[in-house]
């Protein structure tokens, strides 16, 4: 057997990359006014959810149209832990990962039996049904009104250390460590034995099972990992102010998938790029429509139109997304 090129589990490269992203966000936020700082925080939390799709679809070939619903699971579990049990926010975030991972375990057990379109449809039904549970059991989940939670005020030691910290900056500081750790975990996971098993299952199930891989168990593990990530993202997303069904609509699931596809399903850099696009593109379009005096009734649909067209264009031109296109160019230059 030929020697397979493997990376060390804790690679130097992934550590540096995660740290770089962390610093990059902080430096970028210093250049921004408060609104864009909070948009940057949005990117940092949504990136975690997009990474969960990169794992699920890019690395193991399973599709989920319901990552928003899993975000809701994370959001509700953390918000309930804080408001009902009075836990600290940080502990609630960590516990939200475990609750959603447990949810992912059940989902994975069902998903292991499904493939392609069945899985897509089932997760889409889930995306609609889960938020409706909050309305159904209103006394426990507070129905449509939702649970109010926030990041609180920046602690004193931080203001002493770096001076005045605005609410927007504080939300970014809360989210960024989680984003960096999630990025670090995903970067390393794809180079471990588990990551290679996932790719084998993605590319050819029959061949993978002949090579001794337990397909069912592999799929369940992917779902557990991806759901943990999505749940964390959902908890962070909810603590911007409100955890309610309207915060996690079906469109959120589809937007996340779009981000992952535009950037490139198999690329972590692509996930970062795609998340920037879905968060900043609507702002950019708004600026353009304001300048062109396009009526507001048309303007509100333009971001959705642009994102839909971008998704179609990506799939037609290069299903591997921006990252795939870049690689293609680099490849061409060599020859």
């Amino acid at each position, binding site marked *: 057997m030929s020697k397979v090129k493997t990376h060390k589990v804790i690679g130097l490269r992934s550590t540096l990359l995660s740290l770089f992203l962390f610093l990059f966000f902080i430096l970028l936020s210093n250049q921004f006014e408060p609104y864009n700082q909070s948009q940057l925080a949005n990117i940092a939390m949504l990136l975690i959810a997009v990474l969960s799709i990169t794992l699920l679809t890019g690395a193991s070939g399973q*599709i989920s149209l319901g990552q928003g619903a899993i975000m809701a699971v994370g959001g509700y579990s953390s918000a309930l832990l804080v408001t009902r049990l009075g836990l600290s926010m940080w502990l609630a975030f960590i516990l939200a990962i475990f609750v959603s991972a447990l949810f992912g375990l059940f989902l994975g057990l069902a998903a292991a039996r499904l493939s392609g379109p069945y899985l*897509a449809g089932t997760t889409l*039904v889930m995306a*609609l049904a889960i938020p409706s549970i909050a309305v159904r059991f209103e006394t426990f989940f507070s129905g449509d009104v939702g649970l109010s939670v926030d990041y609180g005020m920046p602690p004193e030691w931080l203001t002493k250390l770096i001076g005045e910290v605005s609410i927007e900056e504080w939300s970014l500081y809360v989210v960024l460590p989680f984003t960096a750790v999630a990025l670090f975990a995903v970067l390393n996971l794809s180079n471990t034995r588990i990551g290679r098993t996932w790719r084998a299952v993605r*590319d050819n199930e029959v061949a993978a099972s002949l090579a001794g891989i337990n397909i069912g168990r592999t799929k369940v593990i992917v779902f557990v990992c991806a759901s943990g990530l999505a749940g964390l993202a959902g908890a962070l997303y909810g603590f911007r102010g409100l955890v309610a069904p309207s915060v996690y609509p079906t469109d959120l699931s589809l937007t996340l998938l779009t981000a992952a596809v535009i950037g490139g399903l198999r690329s972590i850099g692509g996930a970062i790029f795609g998340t920037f696009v879905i968060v900043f593109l609507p702002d950019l379009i708004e600026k353009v429509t304001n300048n062109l005096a396009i009526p507001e009734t048309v303007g509100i*649909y333009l971001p959705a*139109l642009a994102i839909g*067209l971008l998704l179609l264009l990506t799939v*037609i031109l290069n*299903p591997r997304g921006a990252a795939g296109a870049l690689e293609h160019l680099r490849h061409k230059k060599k020859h």
Partner: protein
Amino acid sequence: MTPFLTAFFSGTAQGAIYALVSLGLVLVWRSAGVVNFAQMGQAMFTTYIASQLIQNNYSYWSAFLIALISGAALGALVDLGLMRPLTSRKNSQLLNSQSMRTTIPVIASLGILGVLKALAGIFWAGEERGFPSPVAPNAIKIGDTSLAITGFDLFVIGTVFLTLVLTTIFFTKTGMGLAMRASALNPEVTRLSGIKVGSVRTLGWAISGIASSLAGLLVTPRTNLSPNTLDLLLIIGFTAAVVGGLSSLAGSVLGGFILGYVISFVNVYSAPENVFIAILAFLLLALFLRPQGILGSKEVRSV
């Protein structure tokens, strides 16, 4: 009128519409191997076209006919413009892996759904509007007792029944229908026997477009019309198709009626808030008990 009969009649009328949606999904699945998540987006769009025509003083029936024709055209366009180039592409590395070949068309159909919804919002302002029905929605009376079934329900059931009969005749008695069944069963052999498999597939998309467009016309008098109203219908239709068997046309119709009864009985005997959870529970139950569906055949995977 007892609650049971109320649930039964409204279940039949709703189920007839779900059967159309589910039939549309299965038609495309069988002919192209794609679950078209944009299907009800297409139907939403054609229903808006009909609504616009009626506003411009066209008669209901001419708007009805034009909506069905544009449904067929839109379905064919999606296949020719997007799905065919996507699935025929051989060189892309991403499509080399088994799972990606089924994933990419799903993503593409979601893209179409997003674009259609945004366009409908831009063209028609996206506010909820009513949609007329050709029959008054009053309860039918026998003597003094009014039945739980309305004239409109009968119109829906009748139209769907007629559609199903026509579809059955098409698939069993015409050469084109036979060609469609053959290419669903084995495209390679069908191609070798001189049938243009590509055109047959496009025809499948077109017929599916008609069926879903009809479902849109029949459901909106009750639900009103907005870019998002038909999303729920897609979810229900998908569940119906899975319950009946994604590979079986008769199964998809059966699944549609089953879902109609399930939803209507949950509505009457429980609470409307429970409908979503009931759909999810029913879908999961069906997938666990009989993944190939009631009338579906087990998929045999070749290496």
